[in-house]
């Protein structure tokens, strides 16, 4: 059993509370990603699970045992740090063997486990090198190797890819996914990058200002964000949010046109959310919203077009390929109520699109 449970976990520094009572169940073997903007408390939460930060309130359980006062090494966890945190004075082999040496494991056992981890990560050829002779990507592998050697119940990753360049980050992301498949261990992964969260997680925990905004699978969060924070945070391109007036039958756009939503009472609606990829570019006659193009981000495969509506709201639309549009031109869009998100004045979702 290697599930992790958090019950009303709190953290405060003096009078300042930074984690406000987190409840979370992580099942054995799950890949859970804590995601949120910097300062949201995600790293602090991870460090509390690791035993590097004291818990101010609540309980943390690992494998069915409350570990609030259990020192890190006895929690059955291994941690991969953002800076890799390799011991600079030890070879790659010794870096990975350090934990086993401290626990007085026999040399044959150390050899076996270090070589096994090195094989999985394909770092066998530089076991005798020093960390400073390695590239960033290689150091990252050694850091992961050091975690594997400990044979932990739970792997903790603290923004492990943020020091790598973009290409290496994408590649390592895939390798971490494979590693999870191979090791079948519980993994908790902290990142501020929603792409990492979406691609790696079985379950995403969106944190903001010390509270959980939403927990769910990547698709659940993408399709049914519980509030405007999650709606804006999750998704490759930031969701458009428009001020609207709700009514029993639908919502009225700033330009007065009504988007009908059947079957739900939306009289408290104040915000309409629609993702750039769900907007449709149409001709002037069937337009629901019209505006002038301000920026075109051309990415080849698709383009993100930023435009300002006649009412002054900024919006973006994602258009496939290389769209035939120029700066300052008029653009007309329509939205299908099936893909619209509606939020009340507290930012809570009133209605999620179907599918």
């Amino acid at each position: 059993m290697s599930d992790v449970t958090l019950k009303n976990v709190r953290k405060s520094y003096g009078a300042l509370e930074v984690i406000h009572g987190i409840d979370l169940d992580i099942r054995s073997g799950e890949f859970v990603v804590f995601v949120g903007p910097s300062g949201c408390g995600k790293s602090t939460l991870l460090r509390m699970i690791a035993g590097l930060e004291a818990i101010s309130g609540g309980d943390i359980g690992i494998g069915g045992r409350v570990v609030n006062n259990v020192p890190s090494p006895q929690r059955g966890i291994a941690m991969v740090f953002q800076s890799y945190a390799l011991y600079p004075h030890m070879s790659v082999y010794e870096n990975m063997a350090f934990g086993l040496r401290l626990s007085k494991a026999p040399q044959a056992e150390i050899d076996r486990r270090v070589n096994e981890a090195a094989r999985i990560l394909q770092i066998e050829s530089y076991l005798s090198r020093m960390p400073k002779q390695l590239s960033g990507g290689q150091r990252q592998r050694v850091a992961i190797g050091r975690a594997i050697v400990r044979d932990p119940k739970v792997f903790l990753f603290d923004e492990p890819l943020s020091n790598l360049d973009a290409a290496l980050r994408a590649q390592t992301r895939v390798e971490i996914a494979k590693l999870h498949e191979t090791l079948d261990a519980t993994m908790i992964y902290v990142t501020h990058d929603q792409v990492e969260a979406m691609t790696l997680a079985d379950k995403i925990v969106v944190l903001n200002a010390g509270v959980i905004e939403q927990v769910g699978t990547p698709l659940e969060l993408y399709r049914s964000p519980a509030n405007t924070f999650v709606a804006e945070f999750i998704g490759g391109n930031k969701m458009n949010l428009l001020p609207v007036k709700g009514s029993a039958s639908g919502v009225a756009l700033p330009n007065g046109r009504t988007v009908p939503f059947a079957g739900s009472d939306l009289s408290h609606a104040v915000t309409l959310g629609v993702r750039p990829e769900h907007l449709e570019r149409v001709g002037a006659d069937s337009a629901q919203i019209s505006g002038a193009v301000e920026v075109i981000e051309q990415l080849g495969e698709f383009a993100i077009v930023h435009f300002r509506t006649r009412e002054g709201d900024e919006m973006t639309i994602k258009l496939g390929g290389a769209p035939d549009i120029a700066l300052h031109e008029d653009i007309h869009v329509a939205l299908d109520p099936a893909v619209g998100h509606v939020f009340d004045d507290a930012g809570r979702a009133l209605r999620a699109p179907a599918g």
Partner: protein
Amino acid sequence: MKYQLHPWLASNLWVLVALAIPAIFLIGALLYFTGWALAFSFTDLELVGRKAVNWSWVGFDNYARLFTRRGFLESLWTTTIFSFFSAIVGQSVLGFLLAATLRTQRSVLRGVIEATIMLGWLVPDIVAAFLWSATTAQTGLINNLIITPLGFEPVNFINEFALPVVIIANIWKGTAWSYLLFSAALDSVSREVVEAAKVDGATAFQRVWRVILPIIRPHIATNMLFITIWTFTYFPLIYALTGGGPGRQTEVLAIFLYKQSFMVGKLGYGSAISVAMLVIVGVLSLFYLRLLKEPK
């Protein structure tokens, strides 16, 4: 390694030459004085009297005297004890412990301790000597505050525990340097590396011994190099405090050298002592410089 000269400098070489002049004078003066000391060490030159004028070459007589006459070897031993306990054990270990424990503190206590050890460093040697002399005297603070109230006879510390008093005074005087150096060194150790060791199961002692100390080893070697050189040739505080006494209990090499040269007046012998000190410090420095190098 090949150095590239800045383009501006390359076309204005006279600037380099001009800048080199003070250095050349300085190095020249150092070599000149060292050369004279070396030359005198092979003579029977004296400060006053006939041999101050009509000196003669005596070969290695002065060096032989270092080992055959009483004085040098005893002083070397005293200096070794003094350096080992006040610099290497005292200043270094105490400086490290203070740096390691205080760096996590943000309290008034830290400020007080830092100010205290800085004061020790900043107070002139002669003033420090007077303070220690007064504090440890038979009618001094320690006797009045601790010894007498406990019902013991007052102790004249400088007479009865001369070397320990001098060692403690020098620890007090010099710990600030080691503290500052180790504080900076510890700041250079990544917090995550120490935490990684914690997760790996290292106890506090193992984290220090197997992770932090190896990482700051070059800093330790640098510190050792400096404080050994300073302490080995240290003169003013000891001289002002005890004058080398009582008897010759605190007669370190610097004081022995001073007495032989300027009180006894044997400049030739004194020069030989200084050359011997130079050699000893040089050998120690080589040892530390080896430590500074990264392991292959």
